């Protein structure tokens, strides 16, 4: 953390003590969310999500592959995330950072636990199945990558069209049907900053945060959770956040479905 960040962090914490956020939002207010789908044509599915000035792009590729040994009648889904160096002066070139890997795994867990992708629909024939790759590209960072990435991955999957498969070959140019999606998972991330809980933290707020909590739900069940950073949450704070995530799911789902 640079010297200037120390000053900004101290300021954000001081603001918290007077119940204010740096951009004037209430603690339970999220920034505006914008979803754009189908922006890439070579990818089988794509979506860009803006939350404030955080911008995340997700691309989906379908490759012909094999089922896993223990699920011979299903395809596979693999999730990865890149914190691109062009997204922030603090992101570095080189192999995926622990933060990028955590991001991909958390998004993956929510979508997997929510049984969002119909895995059986990815089966093609004996020994052949679709391998679905979801790659999350962080283009500009200003906090809350988890929610932005969850929405981007979900929207890109909903946007995905499956190529034609004939005589053991993939015809990429011909996309014949939508990927079968059975459930929609969205997440809500909260941060603990100076013992106050706030929704949808900015980059500055994440810098100032002691702890971060992401809760992914499908509206009925909590599907995945991840606590990050060195601090902690009380059990009540976690239950409150779960309630907020469950309550907010409907609006987010509607937004995602509208732009598919």
């Amino acid at each position, binding site marked *: 953390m*640079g*010297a*200037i960040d*120390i*000053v*900004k962090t*101290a*300021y954000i914490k001081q*603001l918290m003590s007077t119940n*204010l956020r*740096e*951009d*004037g939002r209430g603690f339970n207010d999220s920034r505006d969310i914008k979803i754009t789908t189908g922006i890439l044509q070579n990818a089988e599915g794509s979506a860009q999500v803006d939350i404030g000035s955080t911008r995340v792009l997700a691309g989906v590729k379908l490759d012909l592959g094999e089922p896993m040994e223990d699920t011979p009648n299903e395809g596979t889904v693999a999730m990865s995330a890149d914190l691109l160096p062009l997204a922030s002066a603090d992101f570095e070139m080189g192999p995926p950072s622990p933060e990028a890997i955590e991001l991909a795994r958390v998004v993956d867990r929510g979508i997997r636990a929510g049984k969002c992708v119909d895995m059986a629909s990815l089966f093609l024939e004996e020994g052949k199945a679709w391998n679905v790759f979801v790659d999350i590209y962080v283009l500009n960072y200003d906090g809350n990558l988890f929610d932005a990435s969850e929405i981007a991955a979900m929207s890109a999957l909903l946007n995905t069209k499956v190529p034609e498969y004939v005589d053991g070959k993939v015809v990429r140019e011909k996309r014949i049907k939508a990927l079968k999606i059975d459930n929609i998972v969205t997440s809500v991330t909260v941060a603990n900053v100076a013992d106050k809980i706030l929704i949808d933290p900015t980059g500055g707020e994440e810098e100032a945060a002691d702890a971060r909590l992401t809760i992914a739900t499908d509206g009925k069940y909590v599907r995945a959770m991840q606590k990050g950073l060195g601090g902690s949450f009380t059990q009540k704070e976690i239950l409150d956040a779960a309630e907020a995530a469950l309550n907010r799911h409907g609006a987010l789902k509607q937004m995602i479905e509208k732009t598919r």
Partner: protein
Amino acid sequence: MQEVIYPGDLLSETPIRAPNSYIENGKTYSMVLGFKDSSGTGIIPFEGGWTPKVEETVIGVISSERNNVYEVDLGSHYRSLIIGGKYERFSFRLGDIVEATVKDIEDGRTIILSYPKALQGGTVISIKPSKIPRLIGKNNTMINQISQGTSSKISVGMNGMVWIKDGNIALATAAILRIEEEAHVSGLTGRIKEMVEKR
């Protein structure tokens, strides 16, 4: 709209020393994107990093201390130092916000600062240094307007760092960021005035 000049545009068939231009094979070319200045040869750039000038005011944050020599983070690649002497001892702490004057620039990469003064409390925000003149405004009109409208104390460093304390800091910050965003759009003073006065 005035004619826009792009990097590499020929400004003169003869060698002329003018701001943001360069001379090659006896001809003068632009090295930035911008407008021609009143001389007709120099260019006023749209964007630009900060190049320190002696006697300029800067704002930064103390980032290290050793033997009465303080390093200051000015949010730029320049190494910036406050050097205490036998009779001049400072007692800054890490994370202190300081305002100081550029005394000297050594090897083009190290800035020596003088007259450092700690700014107590408040916060700093950084904007593009090229927008600082617009933030200050002619005869300080713009910055005074924000300061009065928000009841905030504001101090501006030419390096792009702005210190804000007291009053409605969130509103002052929003106004400053808006100036950074809209520096080139006409009628800005009026819009900022409306913004800070309507609350």
